């Protein structure tokens, strides 16, 4: 059975379109005026302006390695992060700290510490699992490179991104 759709009865004003066209033009012009006067502020000019100031404390950006206040690298190459990393982005090659070193009692440190930023999923498990507070996810999110090799952050790069961090763990400090 045919179903009759009840069309709305249009008024004379609606039938000739023109008033609604003028109304539409007024709306779009209002948008132009607001953009030109700076009333509407919706855009951020990305490389010059960044969202950084609004980023929450718990933001999970690129993982980095940190040193403590004495310049000792906090990582002791226990490789827990390497084992827990779900995409296996972390590769650590440990080495022994030579006996004549100031921090010889720490015994181990990473010789190479690579994080493949193509694989990294920014889950933060490495930070969570680290017993030494050595690896942190910082706020860098624009990780770019022109080749796969460039996207692998080596130890030097990781320390450069991480900087110094005074954590809660002071067990390697000299006894007072």
């Amino acid at each position, binding site marked *: 059975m045919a179903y009759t759709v009840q069309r709305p009865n249009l008024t004379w004003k609606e039938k000739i379109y023109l008033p609604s*066209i003028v109304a*539409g*033009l007024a*709306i*779009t*012009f209002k*948008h*132009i005026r*607001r*953009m*030109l006067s700076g009333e*509407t502020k*919706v*855009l951020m*000019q990305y490389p010059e302006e960044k969202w950084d100031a609004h980023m929450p404390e718990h933001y999970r950006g690129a993982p980095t390695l940190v040193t403590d206040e004495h310049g000792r690298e906090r990582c002791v190459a226990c490789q827990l992060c390497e084992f827990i990393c779900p995409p296996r982005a972390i590769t650590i090659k440990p080495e022994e700290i030579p006996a004549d070193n100031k921090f010889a009692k720490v015994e181990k440190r990473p010789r190479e510490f690579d994080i493949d930023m193509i694989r990294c999923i920014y889950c933060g498990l490495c930070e969570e699992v680290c017993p030494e507070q050595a690896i942190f996810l910082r706020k860098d999110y624009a990780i770019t490179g022109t080749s796969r090799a460039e996207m692998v952050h080596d130890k030097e790069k990781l320390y450069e991104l991480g900087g110094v961090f005074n954590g809660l763990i002071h067990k390697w400090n000299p006894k007072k």
Partner: protein
Amino acid sequence: MDFLDLPWFLIFTSLAKTIFLIFLVVLPMVSYTVYAERRVSALIQDRTGPNRTGFPLSLIGFKKDFSPFLGGLGQPVADAVKFLLKEDFVPAHVNKLYFWLAPMLAMMPAIVTLAAIPFGSEFLGVKMVVADINVGLLFMFAISSIGVYGIVLAGWSSNSKYPFLGGIRSTSQMISYELCMGLSAVPVLLIVGSTGLSSIVNYQVGYGWLIAPFTDGHLSVREILLWIPILIAFITFTISMFAETNRLPFDLPESESELVSGYHTEYSSMKFALFFLGEYTAMIAGSGLIVVLFFGGWHLPFIPYLKDNVVTGGFEFLHAIPGWIWGIVNISVFFGKVAVLLFVFIWVRWTLPRFRYDQLMKLGWLYLFEIALVNIFLAAGILAFTK
């Protein structure tokens, strides 16, 4: 024989005017209309639009890149370079001859119509119109309807369904709206009594703009009565001009959401750019025609347009300024008015949605055509019974 009537002088000035109009005014205007389209659409949609591209002067030895006040003013140049560098791909299934012919037919009529438009009064005694023919309006209509062939041939020769549909739509749309456009210009012709575009402008200089008859300083009963048919004619003419130049809300030939991109789906590189530029050139020619017919062409009230024009009312000091400056002022006034109309074109495009095909045909044949026809009788009646 007057110096200004010598044949070689006429040839030289015509060439100079053509080069000035096409290469120094209209083509830059076209590319910056594209830029304006992008910026204005961005403003309407609360975005910024292209605001980065400057002129990379550091490539040719300067210390810094030049990025003028608004930013993004180098965008048209970048677009042009991009069009030139893209691959000019011709699909195997097209009709080669017409496929090559179509973009040229889309671009050329739009440029040729510019010849009849008076874009300024006089400059050093030379009339600022490339071809001052006394059937200027008819010439404009005749040539601009050739522009349809570009689109139809593009749709047909592409040998593909979406361009074909676009071509068909374009044919029927342009034929139906051309009629209305011609008819709505008739009241103007009745009032002015000439089809020469220069004489239409001269009439408006003497008796006030047709759209605003008070610009000559006084308003008679006859002018007020004639105002009604002129306003109707202006509205119908503008609507048909939108349809004629394939602008939204009448862009059915290239409706992106239905027909991929309509008649130029199969085109790339400079051939596509020719369609694009042709559309914008037609927009400029159309705006120029509207300015000439209704907005008094290059005339602004209180500006002495000729050496012997007498200006009164406290503006006598303007006579001290030499005539050639007024020639330049008149040219800029004309293109200023055209620019305002182009803004309206863009503004309307980003406001209104597209008509459905049957609505388009209904609007053209059942409303605009009748209104334009009745309007002629209205104008003729007012002209006959008032003096």
